[in-house]
């Protein structure tokens, strides 16, 4: 069965913030939820940076459920470009990379980049002393 993984920002209208949407997604739609960033308070519009993965049909159905709840879905199209060949392997970027996309190999002391873990928070852009990162607004 085909599986699917999508990364998106969910924007909740103020009146649906009280509904346990992630619980319903997991329990009724059988999808895996990875919350990468959340900014939600009662009575106020909220944002959730989320990765939904699971069987293709389940992911499609969960999207329809979210739309029925008037949740605005924006796919994450921002990605970080890394000019890795110029890297000098200091750890300045890894130090601020909380999702762990940039990490230091403890044996070889080489910097590793796993783009699949990147949430495009942009902290590395300012942290890199060689300015090797840039933001890319491509289509996801």
């Amino acid at each position, binding site marked *: 069965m085909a599986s699917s993984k999508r990364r998106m920002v969910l924007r909740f209208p103020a009146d649906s913030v009280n509904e346990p949407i992630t619980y319903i997604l997991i329990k009724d739609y059988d999808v895996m939820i990875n919350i990468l960033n959340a900014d939600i308070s009662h009575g106020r519009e909220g944002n959730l940076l989320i990765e939904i993965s699971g069987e293709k049909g389940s992911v499609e159905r969960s999207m329809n459920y979210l739309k029925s709840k008037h949740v605005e879905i924006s796919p994450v199209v921002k990605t970080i470009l890394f000019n890795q060949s110029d890297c*000098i392997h200091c*750890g*300045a970027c890894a130090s601020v990379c909380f999702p762990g996309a940039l990490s230091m190999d403890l044996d070889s002391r080489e910097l590793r980049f796993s783009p699949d873990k990147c949430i495009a928070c942009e902290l590395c852009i300012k942290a890199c002393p060689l300015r090797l990162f840039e933001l890319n607004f491509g289509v996801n």
Partner: protein
Amino acid sequence: MTKSIQDINEKIRAGKAVVLTAEEVSAMGRDHSPAEVTRKVDVVTTATFGPMCSSGMFINTGHANPPIRMERATLNGVPVFSGIAAVDLYIGATENHPEDPAYGGAHIIEELIAGKDVILEAHAKGTDCYPLKDIKTSINRENINEMIMFNPRNAYQNYPVAVNTSNRIKYTYMGSLLPRLGNANFSTSGELSPLLNDPDMRTIGMGTRIFLGGTTGYISWHGTQFKSDAELNEFGVPISNAATLAVIGDAYRMSPEFIRAAYYEKYGVSMFVGIGIPIPVLDEDMASRLMIRNEQITTRILDYGDPDHPELGRCNYQELMSGEISLKNKKIKTASLSSIYQARKIAAILKKQVAEGSFLLTEALEAFPKEKSIKSLDIR
């Protein structure tokens, strides 16, 4: 057993010297005594590759016809120091472009080393012997006379770890420090670092031949802010910033691989400098110094969230290199601002050069000061 530098140089010339990197000798130290290390090893190579702000390069542009006595000068728009003879200039690594804070002297130095063209603009009042008042031309390494790197303070012997307890991100020369102890940045190559392997400077002094930026350079003096009275830990290593080096070398023979311009957000321009120092294993005392391991080197953790940078605790380099330290019951992610990867590369190059006989050791011409504290600046 004791060996002199001359004895060791004889072995180097004969291609018979046993050379290890400081990391290799630290590992060897786990199951060898200092006496055994002295017998088996002749030279240990140490290295560091970190951002070192107190750096720069003298150039001499040659005289134009008619000549100019440059009084205000820029290279690619970056001001350079022209308060010396007519066409001698000093490019300070941290000087930045007035309109582009992320571009500065270090970038000019890197570009000149790499062979790129740079725009020189200079102005003067005009004198009887130097009538020209304005000049704008392009220079590169081929059409100027000298490029002499002279760095007044490099290779700090130990440096504190930076953290931030405040509620907002701090952009510092120790990198981006996340709020509420979100990360901890350090900047020393630990057991591989030159001055941590000869903490009493028995073999490192004025005139010592070193690896600088990809070529051979020399220690020209003690570095500025040199401090001999820092607190020592039980292994005789200063627990904070202490000794420093002033170094000099021919930038024509340097490589952008070991001299790299840097910019720290909202702080400014700095320059990564690669330095390596071979240390002779003269006797058991030197051997025991060179065998020092990361867990035996202590440093202080300072809070950059507070303008006074109070000390919050202490840790060792084994903890720092593990990627995590504990502070205030919290696990904090650590990262090095100096590149261990590059430092290892330098230590390996130097090891090869000494083993092949192309890099001989030097006797220091003069020892560094034994008693030197640093003063702060009173505002009066």
